[in-house]
């Protein structure tokens, strides 16, 4: 069953009750929240995602609840509870939807140690994955959102989930997080996408999320083999420039960006070494999204079919 098949009122009732079990790639989340913007956001962003029933084990139970005591009513807040405990500081209730997405990321990045989880966007073409590790401000999200609507399949915009046993990257198929100027850029660029209502003045500025294309949601169980590691950098006015990045440097960068590299010990090291061995590593400077799309098109075309 898809989330949209539930209907809005059934969704709200379940969110207030035992929760809805939403599957995103290899993970099942049980989501509970009485807060209206959560239901609204899920309807806009996860309409095509599978919802499973209570007989399916949920990996992570995420609860977004209103503030405590007076903060339920005066400057109302929202809180993420995991195992009944507060994880982050409470936030204004208008930030409840991004809080939900951040909370889901927190669950995967702190607990899914059967995978190596790297802070990086990842997309797929012809079964091959391009991993984009990048610090905030490098334009990673915009680039990733753009590519996802120009021929590449989005696996994840934040968390690259690598199975150490198969070295394949799993799709999370979660909405792309956008902030500030990139929101308007993507509205123009991906007109068929569904956008959530932006939350103003969060820690990251103005943020919203953009849905994954329905045909890509249908393919969430198809993993991909890492083929490229690209470090993107937005440089105002720059022509697109692709240059070689040393593999050993790339491995260090990936390790630094991995959430559970230390927790995995030798497995983490071996996994990353094997991933980098299988990949072409590049630096990429650009200023225009269309240039980036062309460059990535050429990367994919250079691979034997």
């Amino acid at each position: 069953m898809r989330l949209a098949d539930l209907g809005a009122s059934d969704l709200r009732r379940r969110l207030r009750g035992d929760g809805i079990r939403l599957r995103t790639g290899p993970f099942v989340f049980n989501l509970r929240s009485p807060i209206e913007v959560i239901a609204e956001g899920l309807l806009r962003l996860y309409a095509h995602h599978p919802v499973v029933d209570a007989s399916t084990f949920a990996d992570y139970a995420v609860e977004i609840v209103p503030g405590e005591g007076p903060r339920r009513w005066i400057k109302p807040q929202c809180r993420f509870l995991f195992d009944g405990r507060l994880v982050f500081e409470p936030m204004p209730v208008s930030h409840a939807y991004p809080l939900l997405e951040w909370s889901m990321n927190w669950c995967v990045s702190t607990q899914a140690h059967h995978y190596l989880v790297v802070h990086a966007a990842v997309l797929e073409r012809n079964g091959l994955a391009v991993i984009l590790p990048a610090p905030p401000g490098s334009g990673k999200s915009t680039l990733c959102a753009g590519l996802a609507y120009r021929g590449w399949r989005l696996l994840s915009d934040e968390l690259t989930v690598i199975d150490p046993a198969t070295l394949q990257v799993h799709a999370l198929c979660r909405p792309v997080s956008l902030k500030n100027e990139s929101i308007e850029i993507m509205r123009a660029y991906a007109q068929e996408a569904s956008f959530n209502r932006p939350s103003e003045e969060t820690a990251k500025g103005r943020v919203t999320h953009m849905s994954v294309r329905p045909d890509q949601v249908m393919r969430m169980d198809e993993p991909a083999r890492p083929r490229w590691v690209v470090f993107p950098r937005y440089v105002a006015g720059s022509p697109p420039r692709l240059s070689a990045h040393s593999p050993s440097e790339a491995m260090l960068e990936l390790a630094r960006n991995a959430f559970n590299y230390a927790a995995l010990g030798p497995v983490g090291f071996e996994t990353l070494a094997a991933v980098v061995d299988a990949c072409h590593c590049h630096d990429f400077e650009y200023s225009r999204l269309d240039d980036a799309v062309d460059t990535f098109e050429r990367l994919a075309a250079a691979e034997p079919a």
Partner: protein
Amino acid sequence: MNADLLTPLWHPDAVLPQLDAAGWERLLRQARLGALVPRVAMRFDAQGGLERVPTGPRQHLENGIRLAERQVQAVRWEVERIRRAAAPTGTPVVLLKGAAYLLAGLPAARGRLFADIDILVPHDRLEIVELALLGAGWVSRERDRYNQRYYRVWMHELPPLEHVKRSTVIDVHHTITPPTSSFNVDGRLLLAQSRPLAGHEGLAVLQPVDMLLHSMVHLFQEGDFDHGLRDLIDMHALLVHFEAQDTGFWPQLTARARQLGLGVPLVQALDQLQALFGVQIPATVAGEIGALHPRPVQRSLMRRAVGRALTPPTPECRRPGDGLLRWLLYVRSHWLRMPLHLLVPHLVRKAWMRHFPGKTGDEAGA
């Protein structure tokens, strides 16, 4: 389905439950809150194998084991850092609790998760050891002046020291109970009987009976029982191991408890070990141990109260009166630590700090 799936798991005769999705979610949640996921995993592994657990929950159990294995490596490494830092002071460092079980190769270390590393040094060496650790990067994370003073004047340990880069935490003790406590143990007696750790020059552990008694008295002093079950599993593993090693263990335990004035915590902990693991006190010492706790009404009240407090703090396990009961145990734990004329102002102060955390500096942590 039982509300509490966690506490009944540990009895040697327990039949492990067949769980559906909701049951596994409940058990994992209870295990996470009690820092017991790796031990639950090992329990299922020992009884029929992890492969019989459905894939979803099995991945979480295996992740627990992975985490515990990594912590073993990390704790060994940190202990070596501590040893090197303290070596120039010439002060032997006695490891306590988890780190001691691990370095001494005891079964109690299996699957145990660590929050910090506890060490014991002579009272008159506290300052020099603290300085040596400071030199190696461990600084006091307690910024509140009241709390700093509270620790240094009234407690058996320094405020926690946190490493500036690695964020590992050391608790430096000079004895195992607060000097103001009704169970006031002289640290020198413990140090005199400590055992050097072979292969780790400058490190030592408590002698077996003291190791067990420390875990017992600790359980009733912490005031929150969030990790109470974990501590009781430690005690059970220590007890089973030591009694198999040394036929004289029980009489030594009884004599040492009397000497250190720890008869009451010994009896109270044994009551819980009996309920959870079916531990039998040998007939030869049963009378003597019983006599260490002369107040039967109090003993039976505590047995039931602590038994309740050990159940997981999840909504499905909650019963009417639990809140009051936990509060009473919290107050009692403080009462054991301090006489009333010190305790009342302290609790008032802590309550104030909890409600107005910004006004007094750091959050209420002591």
